[in-house]
């Protein structure tokens, strides 16, 4: 049985034009943007949910898990790692019945949303330079 550890990979944006999967990458970038909006909405909901944030932790966990899988396969490693961190934080918060101020969840959520935003910017810049 071989290793299943994470390994560093090249920055995803550098490969866009190389591997012939542009359409799929564009679709994934579009999903990242849409997911980023969802995560922002969930963060707003979490900030408001003072009494029972458990459903938000569960939703965060589900979305982060799914995002991690997609980002891994599309080799957007930083997003995959951040999504993994958010999933773990959401699981812990859910198990410990944490309130809506759970620091780990917020830290992971902010990191992920920022990374997704950066990724969008980088992808847009790459697309613009390819077009130019």
């Amino acid at each position, binding site marked *: *049985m071989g290793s299943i550890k*994470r390994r560093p990979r*090249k920055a995803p944006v550098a490969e866009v034009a*190389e591997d*012939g999967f542009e359409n*799929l990458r564009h679709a994934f970038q579009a999903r990242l943007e849409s997911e980023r909006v969802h995560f922002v909405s969930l963060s707003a909901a979490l900030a408001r949910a003072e009494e029972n944030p458990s459903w938000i932790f569960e939703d965060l966990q589900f979305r982060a898990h799914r995002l*991690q899988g997609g980002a891994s*396969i*599309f080799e957007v490693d930083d997003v995959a790692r951040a999504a993994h961190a958010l999933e773990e934080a959401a699981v812990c918060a859910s198990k410990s019945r944490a309130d809506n101020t759970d620091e780990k969840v917020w830290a992971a959520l902010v990191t992920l949303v920022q990374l997704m935003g950066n990724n969008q910017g980088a992808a847009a810049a790459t697309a613009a330079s390819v077009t130019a």
Partner: protein
Amino acid sequence: MLPERKRNLLEDSSVDLNDTILTQRLEAVSPCRVLVVDDDDLVRARLGALLRMADYEVESAASGHDAIRIMSAKHCQILLTDWQMPDMDGLSLCRLVRAEPADSYVYVLMLSVRDSKQDLLTGLAAGADDYVAKSAPIEEILARLEVARRITHVEKSLRSSNRENRRLAVTDALTGAYNLRYLMKNLPRELARSQRYGHALALLSCDIDRFKQINDGFGHEAGNDLLQAFVARTESCIRKSSDWIARVGGDEFLVVLPETDVAGAGRVAEKLRKVFARTPVPTHAGAINFTASIGITAVEAQHDIKSAANLDDLLRAADRGLYASKKLGGNHATASGVIISKSKMNIKKGGSNGIN
């Protein structure tokens, strides 16, 4: 010359498959079908595109239930499945695949974001052959699939060899007829079945007339040609679905005719006798005419009469018929009934239904 898709793959800087052995494998191995199971449509699409470039045939399923439906319709050598999915997860899918008897082995590779040792062990315990994290480089996923392709290819070869060995174990190598081992195993079954259901069963004991002289006069190769022609002509006259022929000695054969009474067996024997004698057989020593002697026997058990026939009775009766045909000068079919009313019956020389 590599196919274009494969060239692209090898030239692709992100997928370093420029390995001689791997490339040779990709060339040598026949198409291999991979079923990609993941509830994420983009993940399925990305994996599917990568696999097609690596010359896999790809099917995809969005859930465990979809996967089962596809696998029941077509054989997929490799199952590449996610773990967490709605309705049926990857572990349940693995267990189900392992529990179902399959014609060929299905190699299961689990691909999940869950990457702890415990996750790996859980996946393998559920029946996966390999486990790889989604965070692994694409090259690693493809390399592991290549291992899966090699293993399924070897398994297919072994299965094919086993099938051939089983066939050879019960077949006479020269003529392609069944051998004595097959006869001794299956004739009792035929007899038991005939007795259980009250159905008839007939045997034709056949022997090529003056075979020794033919062998001595024309050589063994010509004799072998004759034996092959004998079996081929016999097989052309019997029902492929139920009747069969076994070689029991040098030029002695037994034709087994389930669900056939002595009259039906007599018609088959007569047809054979005519087919043998009608045209000469082209052999290494030129065209040779031949005839055969045939002994006929049958169990004609009926539902209200329990057959008391045993195998030895049946074989002895067939031999008696054969001996009688030989005594009549060959090219005869003689019936020697065993069970029920007709105890001794003869078919006239050259006659059709002349049972005495």
